[in-house]
């Protein structure tokens, strides 16, 4: 609750410096543990959603999602609301990326640098194009499959897992970066 109060009080300034953003994110680990013994990790929500909507005959989805996952689904619903609040009552949404990155992306054909994600890829009208489809549908699918197989994502492995000094999380995080580097340097130039 203290974390929420702190976040609320500083939420109105535009982009936070890293030394505020990082610790604020990290604080969710102890707050969730103390509130209800919950381990901070967001990808399990994809499993809970499958379990709630399309469990089928698959053993992996046959469990009481309300019992295990309701808190996390509420948390992720809150994230959606928080994103809405932050983007409507904050400062500008233009991301001040480095000049090098801007130039590299322009070479790949990205020209619109307004907003959180390039409109050339992440809009409904871009969805049926090759680059939009790969970015949104293929990317999303890999996120869902990969996090389920690895048993966690950035929050569950990179933050909670590494903070708890788990070797499995270290292996997963090395994998995250291997995959991210391959996609950035080899896949993006193929379809952008």
């Amino acid at each position: 609750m203290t974390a929420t109060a702190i976040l609320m009080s500083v939420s109105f300034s535009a982009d936070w410096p890293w030394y505020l953003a990082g610790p604020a994110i990290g604080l969710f680990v102890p707050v969730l543990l103390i509130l209800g013994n919950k381990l901070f990790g967001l990808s399990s929500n994809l499993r809970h959603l499958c379990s709630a909507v399309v469990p089928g005959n698959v053993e992996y989805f046959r469990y009481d999602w309300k019992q295990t996952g309701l808190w996390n689904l509420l948390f992720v619903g809150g994230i959606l609301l928080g994103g809405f609040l932050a983007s409507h009552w904050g400062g500008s949404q233009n991301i001040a990326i480095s000049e090098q990155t801007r130039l590299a992306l322009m070479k790949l054909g990205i020209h619109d640098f307004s907003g959180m994600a390039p409109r050339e890829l992440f809009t409904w009208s871009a969805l049926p194009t090759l680059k939009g489809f790969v970015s949104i549908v293929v990317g999303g699918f890999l996120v869902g499959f990969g996090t389920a197989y690895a048993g966690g994502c950035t929050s569950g492995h990179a933050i909670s897992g590494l903070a708890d000094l788990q070797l499995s999380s270290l292996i997963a995080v090395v994998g995250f970066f291997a995959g991210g580097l391959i996609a950035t340097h080899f896949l993006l130039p193929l379809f952008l």
Partner: protein
Amino acid sequence: MRTMSNESTREQTTQAQGQSGIVLLAYILLGIGFGIALTKSEVVSWFRIQEMFRFQSPRMYEIIASAIAVAAASIALIKKLGLKTTSGEPITIPPKTLGNGIRYAVGGTIFGLGWALTGACPGPLFALVGDGVTVMIVAIVSAMAGTWLYGVLRPKLPH
């Protein structure tokens, strides 16, 4: 006697419901705080993820490293002091089973590919929908499909 025990049971039930209602509300409020933090720190931005994977700014690394440092210090403190949850149970963090590690290496790499393509991990996907990038609803449904396929293939995959 019977009436008394009934009444006390009812009282306990009401208390439990009230408690859980407040706790559930707290998860929503915490989620709102986290969504604001994700957006204001810009870690939900495809541009920031690209900058990170191109090693052209320390920002994302500073954010992730300081988040881990704060979380690690907090966990160490919780363990050292033997802190309990708000409802009085001991705090436990279940260790992940390592196995042969293949699921972490392969699953992690597959997620990494998706992370760079969408520019978002599972939490930010939801924050982005709130931010107005509504087409990310499709990415979330596609991510559910990916998780669903994993559920089907799980018995055949090495873990």
